């Protein structure tokens, strides 16, 4: 969070009342959403209501011991984030205070109050290399130079969106801190590597376009059946224990985005620690560099102040938009948007607002859609193409998808990955229910898969979906009469569907090879099962009993394709063996 600049301080007030994270102040001259410092310890807060002389503030820190008549000081500025090199490989709390800096500043493993730190290191020197020269015309949003931010990411220094632009009169290469001027324009504007942007306001872009490229996740059920586009939106709702967080982690690890912003919103501390420990050791599948070099973490765990939980989603998306402006594909994972909604509810109820459905504020739907609308595939102000994909986990109480957060989210997002407690219970992971989930991007992404993977990508997928649908219907009969009462061809269909479930839909996130599955391999596994299907039905027509077909020794090996490094050879081999063993039967 940016430091308050002294000259912008307006008239101070005093605290009138304190109730948890909600504080009211008297005599404060502040605008809506301005950041204020509350009490003797200077706790950070934000103005959320103004009524006559009384200003209501949500405080981002614990308020124990704070009482009336303590001072409240306004910064005169809304909640902003610091943007500039240094955000990759960083870990922030919900108001962009770097947690590693806080640890050393507080000299404690516990989070103390009233300590602030800028979101990016203001002292550190970066190697700036200009991409324009003196005399060039630059407009707002244009890139004036680059900085090697991490091994993976080249940070582009842009003319801030609120600058007019003009002719470059001075620019030179060298080492600069983010506050030093790297370029001067003829109208007197000075460009630094540091920008500030209010989090609740979307950064401008030239045009929003229809996304046509998939965000390849390396997860078979997602890429194969329910793909998300670069610039798309997805929701992962599911009861506890169904694998929301593992799915989000898998996406953060393997999605082919340039930048990943991972927002841990009101979730577990140990989970964030896992990310902090794992990511530096994992390699980005695209570049081979450590994953952290393209990742920004925002960790506002469930026991950290609730008001900062409300803001962490905005902090995350603003950082994502900033990298989008440089022309990168950014993926933002928000785990979990329900905690964000609950934070809104908690604040709203302390304000004694009239509640909407299930106690959530009436503006819940508006806030959710505002947030998801910031995703998209854009032409940026400077004419580049960049995207922000948003994947939000939803934690419906009791696993009931009819609750307001899930329902309002589903009205906006185009991809729905429904996690299922039953599947999780039988350790079918990822526990994404293939009957309930959907992706509205399928058709606009098929051309990409046809071009980059295989011509009959869409047909193969449809075959798999048909078999799974048929299984679903047959299962209802099996529940009543048992499997053996079915005709032989239907029994065989059930067997094929079982392999689709076990070899194709299931994927072991903890297996070093199976954890990532390229679209080619996804397609390969599907065709291997399809080949077994075709040969098996031929054998059945030739009069081979279904038990014998099921019993061939090679078939169970379909389940092991996922863990093979050299899967192409393995599939070739397996197909040949299945054919041979089946043909021996007739």
């Amino acid at each position, binding site marked *: 969070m940016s430091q308050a600049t002294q000259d912008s301080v307006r008239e101070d007030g005093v605290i009138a009342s304190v109730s948890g994270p909600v504080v009211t102040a008297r005599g404060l001259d502040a605008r809506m959403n301005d950041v204020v410092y509350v009490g003797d310890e200077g706790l950070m807060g934000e103005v959320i209501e103004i009524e006559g002389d009384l200003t209501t503030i949500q405080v981002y820190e614990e308020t*124990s011991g704070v009482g009336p008549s303590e001072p409240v000081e306004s910064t005169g500025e809304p909640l902003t984030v610091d943007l500039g090199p240094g955000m990759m490989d960083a870990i922030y709390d919900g108001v962009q205070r770097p947690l590693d800096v806080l640890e050393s500043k507080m000299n404690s493993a516990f989070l103390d*109050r009233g300590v602030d730190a800028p979101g990016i290191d203001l002292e550190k020197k970066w190697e700036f290399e200009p991409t324009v020269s003196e005399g060039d015309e630059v407009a707002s949003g244009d890139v004036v130079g680059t900085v090697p931010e991490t091994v993976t990411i080249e940070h582009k220094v842009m003319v801030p969106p609120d600058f007019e632009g003009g002719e470059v009169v001075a620019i030179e290469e060298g080492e600069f801190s983010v506050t030093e001027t790297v370029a001067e324009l003829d109208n007197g504007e000075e460009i630094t590597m540091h920008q500030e942007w209010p989090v609740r306001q979307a950064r401008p872009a030239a045009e929003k376009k229809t996304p046509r490229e998939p965000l390849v996740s390396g997860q078979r059920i997602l890429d194969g059946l329910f793909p998300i586009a670069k610039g798309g939106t997805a929701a992962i709702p599911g009861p506890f224990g169904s694998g929301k967080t593992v799915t989000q982690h898998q996406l953060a690890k393997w999605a082919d985005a340039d930048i990943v912003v991972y927002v841990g919103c009101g979730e577990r*501390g*140990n989970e964030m*620690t896992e990310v902090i420990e794992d990511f530096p050791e994992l390699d980005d599948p695209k570049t081979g560099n450590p994953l952290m070099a393209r990742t920004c973490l925002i960790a506002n765990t469930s026991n950290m102040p609730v008001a900062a939980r409300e803001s962490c989603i905005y902090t995350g998306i603003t950082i994502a938009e900033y990298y989008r402006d440089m022309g990168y594909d950014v993926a933002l994972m928000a785990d979990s948007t329900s905690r964000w909604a609950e934070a809104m509810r908690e604040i709203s109820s302390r304000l004694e607002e009239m509640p909407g459905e299930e106690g959530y504020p009436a503006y819940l739907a508006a806030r959710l859609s505002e947030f998801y609308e910031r995703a998209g595939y854009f032409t940026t102000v400077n004419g580049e193409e960049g995207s922000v994909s948003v994947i939000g986990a939803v934690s419906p109480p009791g696993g009931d998808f009819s609750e307001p957060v899930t329902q309002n989210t589903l009205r906006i997002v185009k991809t729905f990955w429904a996690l299922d407690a039953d599947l999780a219970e039988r350790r079918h992971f990822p526990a994404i229910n293939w009957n309930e989930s959907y992706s509205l991007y399928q058709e606009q992404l098929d051309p990409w898969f046809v071009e980059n993977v295989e011509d009959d990508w869409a047909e193969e997928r449809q075959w798999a979906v048909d078999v799974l649908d048929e299984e679903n219907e047959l299962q209802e009969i099996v529940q009543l009469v048992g499997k053996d009462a079915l005709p032989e061809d239907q029994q065989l269909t059930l067997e094929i569907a079982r392999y689709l479930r076990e070899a194709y839909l299931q994927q072991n996130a903890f297996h070093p090879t199976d954890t990532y599955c390229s679209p080619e391999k996804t397609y390969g596994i599907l065709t291997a099962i399809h080949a077994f299907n075709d040969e098996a039905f031929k054998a059945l027509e030739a009069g081979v009993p279904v038990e014998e077909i099921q019993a061939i020794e090679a078939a169970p090996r379909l389940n092991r394709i996922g863990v093979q490094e050299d899967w192409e050879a393995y599939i070739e081999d397996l197909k040949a063996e299945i054919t041979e063993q089946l043909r021996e039967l007739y």
Partner: protein
Amino acid sequence: MKEYQTITEISGPLVFAEVDEPIGYDEIVEIETPQGETKRGQVLESSEGLVAIQVFEGTSGIDRNASVRFLGETLKMPVTEDLLGRVLDGSGQPIDGGPEIVPDERRDIVGAAINPYSREYPEEFIQTGVSAIDGMNTLVRGQKLPIFSASGLPHNNLALQIARQATVPEDEESGEESEFAVVFGAMGITQEEANEFMEDFERTGALERSVVFTNLADDPAVERTVTPRLALTTAEYLAFDKDYHVLVILTDMTNYCEALREIGAAREEVPGRRGYPGYMYTDLAQLYERAGRIQGRDGSVTQIPILTMPGDDDTHPIPDLTGYITEGQIYIDRDLNSQGIRPPINPLPSLSRLMDDGIGEGLTREDHADVSDQMYAAYAEGEDLRDLVNIVGREALSERDNKYLDFAERFEAEFVNQGFDTDRSIEETLDIGWDLLSMLPKSELNRIDEELIEDYYHEDAESVEAEA
């Protein structure tokens, strides 16, 4: 210190008093009734001229003439290593007749959040000696793993069994003396239950390494909101200042949440689901998230909260919110209990989220993950088939299906059912697992690595089974 006789309203556990000086939020208050009785409370809302106070010991006996004193500090817990072996009431006063506690330090009971950056990821296996936990839902140091139970089920016996048997095999091997302590926080449990715990603690000698906080069923409900915080503050001190590995057992979280609801209702707050306050998630998180490990510190805080699900319903807000915060859950099952299975843990809905990093070669055994996966899948399949058997009978099922039915039965009878006094090592647990898995043909073991099948699968079991 100023005394006020300005009480304007008394409502349930709340007292409203007028003041002429600023009072801090969360500050501690003493109220002296005209009869000379002193009650303690806490500031819930402070505004100019008026404060709302939540009284821990109940408001009966307070009238408009009672005097109110603000102590100018928030609630603190006196902590010292000497607390080990002591029994305290729900507000931290000793009730065992022992000497007065001389604290090293007085700590704020709200407790600051651990910086996620400073945490160390939990991955040290704790052997509880209970197969259904060690084998299928492994507990690790620094984890919070609640027991989801319901009225009339033996969750207390299981908690005691864990407290008694929990060890870290790795430490034993390396000869490293790990100091182990139990902090027990009881909220609203009956005197009888409390006796059961105390007798077991005394019988096994566990008391001398335990700190016990008891808020009984007839103690004031509001006090229950403080008890777990006192217990966790003590646990954090023992773990992160004195290097103990602390196991915190909190029972019964349902009573704690009822107390929250009571206060919420008295304050006329807008209620959330089923009348529980909208901030219950945050409130519970502030308790559960105090489990963990910290980089550079030797100790750890592991939590086993126990809750009874009203109406056996795990979508009720209490288990639901708990499940979203904790790292898994252990389900106690009513059906298994009535079948005489002890401990009646149902592994299917149970889960330990931190299991994958705490098991495997060098931690438990190389085959652990695969065995547990396969047993889950096999037991789930057997369970499914049971419904079918009820309709079509066992004869109508295929040989394969019958094997799964047998598996499910033996899994319950041999793997889960071990009694509350049997302490099984992880090797024993996994070996029993292989005994059961060997009932199934090798080709069905699709979740186990082929090499492991070669090493552990015993062919004979199949034939033995066939003969039988």
